[in-house]
């Protein structure tokens, strides 16, 4: 049964894709008109709809016939940037060369992603998050599962994939650039497989397609939010890693720069003249192994239904990873995936883009309990000035973890991401004095940050 359903959806999907590729919007509309007039005009004595049917059928037939006369040979090459960002425009260029002898004009380009159809095994085994809540019919037919799996594998929406991008007149032998702008809908690796050079028929209903194989990929970084000026907590701590970690900034006898005062800076480091000038305390920095180190802890332990919440948590973590000024401090990104990850960036060790790449690939952890995360954090707590915890749940384990961290004297910023449909009750979110929990709701994260 599952195999038949899979086969059915697979074929149906191919057919839909074929129609989307081959027919323009007016062409699809004409096809719908043909179907409607065929139904209404089935009896030619009863209505005149059969006249509409034959007229529409004749224009579609002529369109298809005209399209077979298109000849052309092309080569195409993408010039991709290193990264894109989810839900932000990704702009790149495609160089198309007309390898034929004829001048080509009025063409346009589609850039196609990897076929998002899941394999049979995924269809059989991976459940859609809301599957258990659906009615019996939906559970048997598994259409929503299919749709969800497609969405999961899809980086570009059909509107982007089949967007008409006009190609300027192609002179034989000369390359022409086309600017392509797409909006990747999710983070991860976007794989582009081929490009289609489209030639519309004279009536603008049917298209001839020349396919050029052009496999390429680009890393799509998580969506990021504009953070308000959040004061990162904590003071400088001795780094047992020693001088290897202090090559750019820290405290030593050698003066490096001036910077804003942070709680814990010794008074003799204050640069009084700068204070007098700027009106706020400024200290001198020297190279030494005392510096600020923050942890960015990402909660990856999610339930199936928390897909959106998890994605938002990754975006929030990415926003922090970008905003923390890692030239002055270290940032340890910690999370549990297939194993425990701790990636340190800042001070020449790693850069923000590497952190973001890691976050682009992070997956929910469903096979391990939350209890595997705290030991990883506690093993480094003696080096941490502060900790930013991005949580997606508020159960007893998480509460105990936060309480213990707080008790260990680590300055904390707790960000709790809630599902807009299932927010946590207010009375649940109480942990103790002096600890603030920032609650953000999915879909309104930026709004939540703006209120801070």
């Amino acid at each position, binding site marked *: 049964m599952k195999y038949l359903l899979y086969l059915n959806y697979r074929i149906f999907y191919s057919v839909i894709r074929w129609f989307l590729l081959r027919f*323009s*919007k*007016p062409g699809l*509309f004409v096809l*719908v*008109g043909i179907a*409607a*007039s065929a139904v*209404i*005009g089935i*009896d*030619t*004595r*009863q*209505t*005149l*709809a*059969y*006249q*509409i*049917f*034959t*007229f*529409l*059928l*004749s*224009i579609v*037939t*002529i369109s298809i016939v*005209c399209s077979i006369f298109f000849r052309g040979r092309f080569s195409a090459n993408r010039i991709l940037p290193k990264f894109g960002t989810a839900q932000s425009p990704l702009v790149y260029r495609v160089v198309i060369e007309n390898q034929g002898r004829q001048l080509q*004009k*009025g*063409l346009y380009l589609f850039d196609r992603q990897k076929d998002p159809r899941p394999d049979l095994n995924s269809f059989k085994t991976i459940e859609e*998050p*809301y599957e258990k*809540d659906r009615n019996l019919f939906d559970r048997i037919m598994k259409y*929503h599962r299919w749709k969800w799996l497609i969405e999961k594998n899809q980086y570009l929406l059909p*509107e982007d994939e089949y967007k008409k991008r006009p190609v*300027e*007149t192609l*002179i034989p032998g*000369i*390359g*022409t*650039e086309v600017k392509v702008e797409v909006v990747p809908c999710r983070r991860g690796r976007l794989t582009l497989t081929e490009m289609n050079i489209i*030639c*519309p*028929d*004279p*009536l*603008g*209903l049917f298209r001839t397609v020349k396919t050029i194989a052009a496999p390429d990929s680009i890393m799509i970084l998580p969506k990021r939010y504009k953070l308000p000026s959040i004061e990162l907590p904590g003071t400088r701590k001795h780094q047992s890693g020693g001088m290897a970690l202090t090559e750019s900034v820290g405290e030593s006898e050698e003066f490096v720069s001036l910077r804003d005062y942070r709680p814990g800076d010794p008074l003799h480091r204050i640069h009084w003249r700068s204070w007098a000038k700027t009106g706020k305390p400024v200290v001198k920095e020297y190279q030494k192994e005392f510096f600020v180190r923050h942890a960015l802890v990402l909660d990856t332990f999610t339930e199936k239904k928390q897909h*959106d919440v998890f994605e938002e948590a990754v975006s929030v973590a990415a926003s922090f990873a970008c905003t923390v000024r890692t030239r002055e401090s270290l940032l340890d990104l910690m999370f549990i995936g297939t194993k425990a990850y701790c990636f340190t960036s800042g001070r020449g060790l790693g850069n923000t883009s590497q952190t973001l790449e890691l976050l682009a690939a992070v997956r929910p952890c469903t096979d391990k309990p939350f209890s595997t995360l705290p030991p990883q954090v506690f093993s480094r707590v003696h080096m941490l000035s502060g900790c930013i915890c991005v949580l997606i749940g508020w159960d007893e384990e998480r509460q105990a973890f936060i309480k213990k961290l707080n008790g260990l004297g680590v300055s904390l910023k707790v960000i709790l991401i809630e599902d807009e*449909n299932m927010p946590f009750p207010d009375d649940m979110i109480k942990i103790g004095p002096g600890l603030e929990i920032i609650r953000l709701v999915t879909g309104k994260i930026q709004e939540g940050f703006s209120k801070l």
Partner: protein
Amino acid sequence: MKTPPLLMAAALAIWAWQTGFWFFGILIALILEASRLIETRWNFSLSDFKRIADSCTIIFVIMAVYLMFSTSPSKIIFTLLQWLPISFFPLIFAQTYSVKNRIDIRVLSLVSRRQKDFGPKNPSSINISYPYIMTVVLAASIANVRTPGFYNALFILGVWALFSVRSRRLPFLFWVMIVIFAGFSGYAGHIGLHRLQVFIEDKGMDWYMNAMRGTADPFKSITAIGDIGTLKLGNRVIFRVESPDRKLENLLVREASYNRYILSNWFVTSASFKLSTPEADKQTWHISPERENSSYIKIYSYLGERKDVLKLPGGSFKVTQLPVSSLEISPFGAVRIENGPSMIGYGVYYNPDYFTDSAPDTSDLVIPKKEIPAVVKIVRQLDLGSKTNDQILETIHDFFQNNFKYSLQLENKYEEITPVSEFLLNLRSGHCEYFATSTVLLLRGIGIPARYATGYLVYEYSKLNKAYIVRESHAHAWAIAFINGKWQDIDNTPAGWPEFDTADAENSLWEVFFDFFSWMRFAFSKSKEQQGGIKNYALLLLIPLFIILARRLSFRRSVTRHRKKQAIETSTLEKRNGSGFYSIEKYMESKGFYRLTHEPLLFWTDRIKSGKQLPTEAIEALESLIHLHYRNIFGHENITNKDLQNFDAKVRLWLKTYRSVI
């Protein structure tokens, strides 16, 4: 896709022309096309759109309920489809005058609406202008006004719509040729399609008649004579007969009669129907002159789609309460009607002594060659030649009653003789068609003109219906003979045959249920047809629907109104981005002066200048236009629409001046 100007109005004009709804057509067209001039727009929210979409559904339901009580069921769907442009007008109005000018897909899809929690996060939106135009055109086609004008109008509308989406790859003339070719092929196609249907209908009629035994055809009666197996007829109630005096024992109600017997089937030769004219009330029809001592019955029957044959007792001369568009009378007693309501209850005045059938001729005495031996043998055996007409009738009647038995088992043991001869000589068992055919042939054998008649036997009285009910199994065949200067019914099928046919059915519990539901349907249809019946309650039924409609349309908060300013700004911006200068570039490219990708315009003109193919003044004028063009697209100063218009005028002037030299 934005619709071209006046396309919507043109589609609505076709609809109004075809359906006759000029008022609505002009009104809707004016309102929708006025959006190009009126700048006011409303900011409808998703819930507002949902409310409007629901209102469309309610209007649709109101129309359906109204039609249920005002027209025949077969016409409800087509009439509703014709009215679709009215019922969906609120939605297209809301889209046209909304700020977004599109409709969220969740408004139209109930499935998406229900998937509140796990539905798509970014649902798409659509522009319903073109779907509405298609609906309007389809609705126009349903009016079925069969003039060539419809296709011509459809073609013009199609060209109008296709013009904006045409590909610019090929010359305009080529597009024109293709469109004209499409128009002709569509025209030929629709004529061919219609002829194909007519051809299939004609060829398929025989098959259909065989498959749908029992449907009356005034020209031909296909019998089961010669078939093998068991003849089975259903027990569905076909019509009901009310009689004031309830004395209708074994009344024969005829549909048609036939005069030629060929290969087990009866036919009518040279029968032409004559059109009858109704009285002033348009419901009273005369079949023949009025007779005295007439009887009256009322027959309730369901009508077919377009044409049907009336069920009438022999000697019917007047039919009343029959609201049909035409009534035709055949010389063989068949009365054909056209375009009536789904159920008719017509009164019939008849005198069985005065049949309206045409006078007999030689065709009423013809006996097929193969049947002659059997007929002659029986005529001699019964010594009919020496008897009077009345004695002949009595002798034949007794012959069939005493020597034959009624049976629905169809047998044919002797292939060398015809089924009727076998029936007469050997088998002596069969159903009514055998008895009727044999009677006709025997009467003809001794020189009495006779015809074969088909219809029904009315005998079963239903207390539930308070009328006689006639089932499919009561279908009957008998002979009519011209004796003593007049036609009369001769039924020699052994008495009690109807009980034989329905013996099983009467014991069936299902039959009781079916009869009950049949009566319910009949009672509903009857009351619908009556003036002052359920029809009056239809309006009461509509009241709650109107209340729901009013509630859905009452917006609790006011919808914010906007000027079209934003749209104007957008159009200006678009104009700036797409500055009229590009028409020069396009023209130059058409003449072979291609501009390379991302090549600055002034570099391009330098290149052209170095080629020395164009006059210097043309290039210089072009360069000054390029500066203005740059100002238009990059300039920070306030560029007004007037500036842009001036620029466009300069571009046109340049094209006009130098077109001859380039």
